[in-house]
């Protein structure tokens, strides 16, 4: 057996999986708090990539260096996406807070279709080339077969982001309010927590993570279009369900498992079946563990 090839695939799988994980976190956090599957989440990711694309274009013209441009573009993407997530919740979901559960779901699908087509109309339906901003690091040369410089940055950024998220949820006031709201919304209100603000914060945090993922993916694949949000969203949603929806470590685990399964399947069998492996795995795991890898079965008292 060719271990080098296997290792190559594993590295690539982890890189891919960590990006799925970043997007999956947004799905799982929102679901944890308001039991809504935010189908428009993938679109926020796509919009993050587009904002970065536009800002990059402008900044490159004015002659800045690659890494500065990428940082500024990412910053712009994050701010824009945060505003998008906040507004999306306010317009599409908040008015339906007390409606039957199906209504916000339909609203989510509507918001997703609207955002996708909106970008398609004002930008273009075609693929746009995303400039290569990160030049290869010299020290990565010996292992460039396994991990490119972009991959390294992706791994560092996703790790740092996830640690920051953990700290935020565990130790900050907002994080405590989020956990309380997730575990018992009525009691959270009776403890003096402004639940509306917590929900807004959750959407903002999820959107920030998605935008970061959008910028990272765009600089890895080198191209973007208005439909990337749909595919990535579906994959990340799969990752979230795989890990146990509503469970934050589960989203990360689900993302990694999905990324690795995809690259292994594509590498050993056929890349044409990449998606089949992803969704096949989902079916398999949900058959064996219906609540996902780390999800807890919901016990219903009768």
């Amino acid at each position, binding site marked *: 057996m060719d271990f080098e090839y296997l290792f190559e695939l594993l590295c690539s799988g982890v890189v891919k999986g960590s990006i799925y994980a970043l997007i999956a976190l947004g799905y799982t956090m929102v679901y944890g708090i308001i039991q809504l599957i935010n189908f428009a989440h993938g679109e926020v990711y796509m919009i993050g990539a587009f904002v970065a694309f536009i800002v990059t274009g402008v900044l490159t013209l004015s002659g800045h260096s690659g890494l500065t441009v990428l940082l500024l573009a990412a910053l712009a993407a994050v701010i824009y996406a945060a505003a998008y997530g906040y507004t999306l919740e306010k317009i599409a979901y908040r008015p339906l807070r007390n409606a039957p559960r199906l209504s916000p779901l339909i609203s989510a699908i509507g918001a997703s279709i609207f955002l996708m087509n909106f970008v398609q109309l004002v930008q273009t339906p075609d693929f746009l080339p995303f400039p290569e901003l990160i030049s290869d690091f010299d020290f990565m040369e010996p292992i460039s077969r396994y991990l490119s410089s972009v991959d390294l940055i992706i791994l560092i950024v996703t790790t740092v982001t996830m640690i920051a998220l953990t700290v935020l949820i565990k130790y900050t*006031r907002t994080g*405590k*309010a989020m*956990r*309380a709201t997730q*575990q*018992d919304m*009525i*009691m*959270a*209100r*009776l*403890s*003096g*927590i*402004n639940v509306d603000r917590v929900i807004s914060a959750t959407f903002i945090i999820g959107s920030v993570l998605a935008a970061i993922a959008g910028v990272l993916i765009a600089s890895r694949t080198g191209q973007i279009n208005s439909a990337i949000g749909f595919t990535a969203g579906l994959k990340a949603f799969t990752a979230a369900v795989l890990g146990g929806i509503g469970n934050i470590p589960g989203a990360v685990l689900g993302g990694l498992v999905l990324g690795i399964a995809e690259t292994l399947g594509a590498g050993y069998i056929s890349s044409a079946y990449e998606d089949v492996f992803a969704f096949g795995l989902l079916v398999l795991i949900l058959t064996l563990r219906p609540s996902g890898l780390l999800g807890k079965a919901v016990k219903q008292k009768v």
Partner: protein
Amino acid sequence: MLEVRNIQTCYGNIQALKNVSLTINEGEIVTLIGANGAGKSTTLMSICGVISPRQGEILFRGEPIHRLNAEKIVSLGICQVPEGRHIFPQMSVLENLEMGAFLRKDKGGIKSDIEHAFERFPILGRRRHQAGGTLSGGEQQMLAISRALLSRPSLLLLDEPSLGLAPLIIKQIFEIIRKINAESNTTVFLVEQNANQALKIAHRGYVMENGVITLEDRAENLLSNEDVKKAYLGM
């Protein structure tokens, strides 16, 4: 201290409260007794701003509060221990207590209040790092009451604190409620199905039937009232 004037509260088209009025004076323990579905919990939720009454008004220290949201009402010093205790299941005992003090900023005061809670219920102190969801019913009730006290309420609302607990624990819980009222001058509004125990520690009581207050009197009078005896005391 608290004045509820003719409130009507509805869930959709179902009217749960029809013209409910009651008064709670500073320093009292007032109990609201009644059968299942009479509207007792709805009364508490209306006071706390979780459900807004459709009509009528609620005054706290003379100021209307029935249009305020729940967070604001907590900050005024009204705190509820809801029915079923509502412990945050995945948070530790300590974290649950800290959530009770969510609106407070005085770290030192919170710390000493938590120590005080552990003195009052030593079992909670021994389990401070255990997840709230793993406690027994009685322990959860102790935690729920302690958590509410951490907001330093001037008016404590308790919804069925005896529900599902063993008789010995019930006795202990009622004794604690009496103590909280006597020692820290916290006004208590106690909703109970266990009318006998509730009336024993209360100063005054209200009886509720089908969303209407049907009786109001001093607790000892209600305990000897023939109708109350027959309907709620099982005598």
